[in-house]
């Protein structure tokens, strides 16, 4: 087995060479993850805002469910989606198994509870500050939710980025529903798992470094957004 330094040098060489296969894997990873995060935000932001802004029967039950679902084991989600999309499953007719769409569905199921639960916390805090003023102004329910979402926009961007971080690093669910098919459903995490098992450590490490770089960029963005928002007194 080659030394770690030799593997690292080869991995960096792979990254710098802009290998077409590597680029394809990165782009598919980003496409799947960004789509899943976008769908999760469309569902999770209003859901979290409604739960955070209003009191209603069974709200505590909804809160418990949301917080529990945050910790969903990815392999269980992958298995559930697999059962739904497999040929004998209720949605098998759609033919989505082993496609990027199936991976998006699995990641959306994983990320939506995170987005919803974190949004609920952010909106509940902000609503505590605004509630009396909103009552006084006679703000309706829809206007209230929209105003809270808008005024919490910087905090909610960090929520979306947290969801992105969870999705892009996820491997258990996407490998089950995607199948890790070359040029079709192979993403960074599944490739790292596969190439490591094959002993192709250079490619695995190259993708690992890129994944780390993405994590650094996401955290940098988080800091920048918080700094910008704090300077503008919007947090």
């Amino acid at each position, binding site marked *: 087995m080659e030394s770690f330094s030799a593997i690292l040098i080869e991995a960096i060489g792979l990254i710098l060479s802009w290998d077409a296969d590597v680029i394809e894997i990165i782009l598919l990873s980003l496409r799947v993850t960004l789509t899943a995060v976008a769908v999760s935000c469309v569902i999770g932001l209003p859901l979290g805002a409604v739960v955070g802004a209003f009191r209603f029967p069974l709200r505590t039950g909804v809160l418990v469910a949301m917080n529990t679902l945050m910790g969903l084991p990815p392999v269980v989600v992958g298995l559930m989606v697999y059962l739904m999309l497999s040929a004998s499953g209720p949605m098998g007719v759609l033919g989505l198994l082993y496609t990027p769409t199936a991976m998006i569905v699995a990641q959306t199921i994983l990320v939506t509870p995170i987005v919803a639960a974190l949004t609920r916390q952010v909106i509940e805090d902000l609503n505590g*500050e*605004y509630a*009396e*003023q909103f*009552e*006084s*102004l*006679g*703000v*309706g329910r829809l*206007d209230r939710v929209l*105003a809270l979402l*808008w*005024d*919490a926009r910087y905090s909610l961007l960090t929520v979306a980025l947290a969801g992105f971080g969870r999705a892009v690093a996820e491997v258990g669910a996407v490998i089950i529903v995607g199948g890790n098919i070359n040029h079709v459903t192979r993403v960074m995490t599944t490739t790292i798992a596969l190439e490591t098992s094959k002993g192709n450590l250079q490619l695995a490490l190259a993708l690992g470094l890129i994944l780390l770089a993405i994590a650094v960029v996401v955290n940098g963005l988080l800091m920048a957004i918080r700094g910008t928002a704090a300077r*503008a*007194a*919007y*947090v």
Partner: protein
Amino acid sequence: MSEPAIDIRAHSAVAPQPLMSARGVCFDAGGQRLIDGVDLDVLPGRCTVIMGANGSGKSLLLRLLHGLLTPSEGSIAWRGRPLDRAARREQAMVFQRPVMLRRSVAANLRFALSVRGVRGPERKTREAETLTLARLDGLKDRPARVLSGGEQQRLAMARAMISAPKLLLLDEPTASLDPASTLAIENLIAQARESGATIILVTHDAGQARRLGDDLIFLHGGRIAETGPVVRVLDAPRSKAAQAWLSGRLFVPNNP
């Protein structure tokens, strides 16, 4: 039912209908009666000042009159009808600590108009007029939360006035403001009155009460200790609570 605490029909040749009436209003919280049997009539165009020591129930009474809290007993009527959400939309309240939305000064004003359904050219016109009225033109694009305390309170006043409320409830709007900022707020209150708004003002400032008020309600321990024209109550208070408070002495109930 007892007689209302404030009723200026005696001062008027033609008796106007009260804008707001409270009858036997009580409010309990934490096993304590915090507001106890308040009766009052608020007549259109008047400025009613509510004074009293800290903890006497001034802010609580204001919230009850605005419908932000529901009385434990008694009733509050708005133009002879139960105080409801629709009635509250004809009122506006300015809180002691202004709540600034996380957006610009102008956007704070636009929000107040948009929730009232005012849009398009009318919204632009009213926004511009109100910015000028509150002398906030030069700050309109600034985030509201970076404004000074005085500027934030001016914006809160402007946001309350922009919807042309019939009743303006002001909870110590000049507390902890410097004289210049206080004067700016008092000018806005005067302009609101000129526009026809009725005012209910909570203040600790006897000078401000004299400058702005017509009638005074003195609260003590959640009850109305004394009412009457501002000058009379401040110059010749009849209740022990008001006498003690105005002379700077602490008044403990049942042990005067």
